[in-house]
């Protein structure tokens, strides 16, 4: 087997194993309500961390100003409960315009 196939197989099997933990346990093990509640909170904690790092960082460093500015606009709109499409398109438009104007 060549190296690339090994890499894809390892990544595929490992990722699927991670994904299957929850669904495989469900229905077999009585998950206490408290644990389920923590899993839901943990998912939101992870998503907010992904939001923060995805908005601000790239390859371990600062992502430049254009993207955080776009996401900030999205954040304000989302907080004010703007429709989903408005939030996402505003972020993309602000970031693209700032880049066109020369911001990083």
């Amino acid at each position, binding site marked *: 087997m060549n190296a*690339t196939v*090994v*890499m*894809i197989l*390892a*990544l*595929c099997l*490992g*990722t699927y194993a*991670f*994904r*299957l933990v*929850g*669904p495989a*346990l*469900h*229905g077999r093990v009585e998950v206490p309500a408290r644990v*389920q509640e*923590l*899993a*839901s*909170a*943990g*998912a*939101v*904690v*992870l*998503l*907010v*961390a*992904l*939001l*923060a*790092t995805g*908005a*601000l*960082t790239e390859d*371990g*460093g600062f*992502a430049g100003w*254009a*993207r955080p500015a776009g*996401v900030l606009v*999205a*954040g304000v709109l*989302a*907080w004010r*409960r703007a*429709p*989903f*499409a408005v*939030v*996402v398109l*505003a*972020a*993309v438009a602000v*970031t*693209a*315009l700032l*880049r066109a104007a020369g911001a990083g």
Partner: protein
Amino acid sequence: MRSSHRTTRPPGARTGTSLVRDSSLVWLAGGIVGVSFGAVSVAGGLPVWVPVVMSLVVYAGSAQFSAVGVLLAGGGPLAAAATGLLLNTRTAAFGLAVADLLGPGRATRLLGAHLVTDETVAFALAQPDPARRRTAFWISGLGLFAAWNTGVLIGALAGTALGDPARYGLDAAFPAVLAALVLPALRADAGVRRAALPGAAVALAVTPAVPAGVPVLLALLGLFAFPGVRR
């Protein structure tokens, strides 16, 4: 996303329509990022089948980008797989969070597990009731899988002719999708907020110092601030 017109009208076909409408933007953005993944892989010297097969069987955007990045930098297949796996550890936590949405059948659980991604989990958890969460998971998951893989195929075949998605601001789309989906929950639930904000601060603080994937895992330390965890 609990806009007023959805709570004042009965659920049903309209629910599906609004979920498809909101998901379709995520599909579009995912498809375009998929195009860039296919193009980057082929431009780096990998054969067309590598990004295409990888996207079908791994189906995890950030892990695929990093694994191919390591591979193209000469890092070796195991280092590449390890980098991607580190990024995907979070899917275990997501799987736990959505397990009850996948239904009782073995086949739906096996298929549903493969569709667990950041966007789809965020999309499902943002819905107000269990029935809607379940529908949202499958609509977002199946659509994103189709869009991502179609995009990767197009990118791998077209090569780099399509340009850099960052020019069009598309790198802001995914953080913005997450903002749209999680900020309403954060606003409504002070307990989750107390855990999520310090968690995000930890993730940002350690990002320059630790491998990709670790920052968001360390964000889970924020759960110690979740009400009732510390006695």
